[in-house]
């Protein structure tokens, strides 16, 4: 642990020339190529990311353009079932929207909210962790006590509460405009604790090292030392947590949307699509809910597997 972190600043200085070569010779890359499941999940994740990113280009229809929708197209089963329409590979929903296209666009929203809330949680958690670890004293105990209290509650409950409060404060009309912000806020705030704890732990180790003492000696301000010198050395574990949290954030967003407190049906995420389709499950139109569900499952599973592998690969205890 201490060897790796102490060596890090030296490496940073020499990183520029041979990044590709360094990556190729890295033992992380080696462990990656030796684990077929990880390679598969990386490929699947990449495919899903790309298809979400380029959804407007590859989606056969634009599900948000009312002009192209026809109520006559509604409730088509998947194309291979015989009663389906070859124009709609995975069938259509109650408004005649192509399921494949809504999934591609929905995945965009799911991923966007997921990434944004992980980023938000990371910024909040890392900042508070740095402050707690570096300043210590009252700041440390206040931040860590809040973290302790929050850790006793499941994230989904906290996200629901924040959402409910935001609804009450904003009122029903303006709530629709800020729903994405509220989602990112509520998911982000329910996940910051892990980052804060990890960063605080690493900072406590780092801050007694010579380079921090030297930086203090030449009179750098605490904030500069924290951000420019300590932060780069504690980021490794943060990235692992972020990967694992991405799967959790996507699942939480889907859950909130499914419960009806997340993304509105006008701009559906995967969770909203599953919620919409759930109403038709009993009348036989299973494809409306099952296909978005499978997509969400594959997305969550492959990101999760990637995160698991990354955690093991970066954990020196398991090498």
């Amino acid at each position, binding site marked *: 642990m201490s060897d790796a972190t102490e060596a890090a600043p030296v490496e940073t200085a020499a990183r520029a020339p041979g990044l590709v070569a360094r990556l190729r010779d890295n033992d992380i890359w080696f462990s990656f190529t030796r684990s077929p499941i990880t390679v598969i999940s990386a490929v699947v994740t990449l495919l899903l990311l790309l298809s979400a990113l380029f959804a407007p280009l590859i989606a056969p229809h634009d599900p948000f353009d009312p002009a192209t929708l026809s109520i006559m197209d509604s409730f088509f089963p998947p194309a291979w079932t015989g009663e389906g329409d070859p124009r709609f590979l995975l069938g259509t929903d109650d408004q005649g929207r192509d399921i494949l296209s809504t999934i591609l666009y929905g995945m965009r929203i799911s991923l966007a909210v997921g990434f944004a809330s992980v980023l938000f949680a990371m910024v909040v958690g890392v900042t508070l962790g740095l402050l707690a670890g570096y300043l210590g004293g009252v700041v440390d105990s206040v931040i860590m006590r809040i973290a302790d209290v929050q850790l006793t*509650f499941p994230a989904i409950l906290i996200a629901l509460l924040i959402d409910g409060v935001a609804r009450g404060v904003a009122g029903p009309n303006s709530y629709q405009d800020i729903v994405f912000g509220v989602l990112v806020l509520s998911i982000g705030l329910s996940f910051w604790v892990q980052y804060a704890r990890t960063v605080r732990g690493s900072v406590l180790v780092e801050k007694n090292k010579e380079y921090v003492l030297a930086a203090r000696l030449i009179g750098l301000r605490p904030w500069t030392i924290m951000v420019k010198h300590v932060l780069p050395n504690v980021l490794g574990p943060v990235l692992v947590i972020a990967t694992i949290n991405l799967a959790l954030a996507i699942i939480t967003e889907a859950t909130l949307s499914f419960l009806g407190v997340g993304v509105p049906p006008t701009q559906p995420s995967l969770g909203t699509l599953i919620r919409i389709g759930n109403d038709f499950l009993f009348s036989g139109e299973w494809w409306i809910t099952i296909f978005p569900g499978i997509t969400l499952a594959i997305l969550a599973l492959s990101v999760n597997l990637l995160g698991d592998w990354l955690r093991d690969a970066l954990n020196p205890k398991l090498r």
Partner: protein
Amino acid sequence: MLAFAIRRLVQAIGVMLVVALISFIMFRFVGDPVNQLVGVDTSPEDRAALREALGLNDPVLLQFGRFILRAAQLDFGISYQFKQPVAALIASRLPATLELSLVSAFFALAVGVPMGVFTGLYPRSWASRAFLAISLIGVSLPTFLIGILLIFLVSVNLGWLPSFGRGAVVDIGFGWTTGLLTTSGLQSLILPSITLGLFQMTLIMRLVRGEMLEVLRTDYIKFARARGLSRRAINFGHALKNTLVPVITITGLQVGSIIAFAIITETVFQWPGMGLMFLQAVQSVDIPIMAAYLLLIAFLFVTINFIVDLLYVAVDPRIRLGGARG
């Protein structure tokens, strides 16, 4: 031991006070309590009178004190949505949630422990690999999706089990209704409990597996083998017994999150419990129910944590010296 218990108790009370403060702030400052209680045609004088009667003009600190005092007497005010006392509403929904949660916890233990023991004893067999694959799915899939898939397969396609509600319930006194005594009640319990318990089951299975793998490598197991004890005596009498301490702790801690996650399961299966009511409260900004639910869940969590901490110390005296975290 006593000092440890008192320190923990003080911490627990501190947590409860913080949570009470949060629910008080929600209760008092999110939306206007008066507007929620009266109709549009109420005159400003009546509103002012009601404001005074509710004590909303008193100093905030006094209001907070009164809030805690009332909460301690289980008086959480009147629901905006149902116009009924929140405590009575929660009490009527509590049995459904508790029954579901306890059956789920039982399911998680009854299936998770044997699966964990098996995968720990025979890590290379194909069945163990299958169990591990299932556990991966249980960890990765969102609860609501598992519920929907179960409904789709078992209720819609096969028609074996009901997919919503509690079935027929029996009142066994004290306002406690149970579905455990009727056939339809038991049938209705199966799918929701599997959905709710699956995550905990995989957690317990992985935990038992990890502990078993570790314990089986220790010297006293090797010694027991050298003495020629039967496999059964070694595996269950010696190895499993030593894995159970963390299992009990984790299960205890998980009971709290089962109750919280019941929100999702209850929504999927239209189970008439507290979670469903809480979700409806969030959607319609029914702050008194939200505040009361938050306090109740916090109380359950803090109590369970407290008991588990004490049990832990009772079982493993080393913790007393190290001083558990915090």
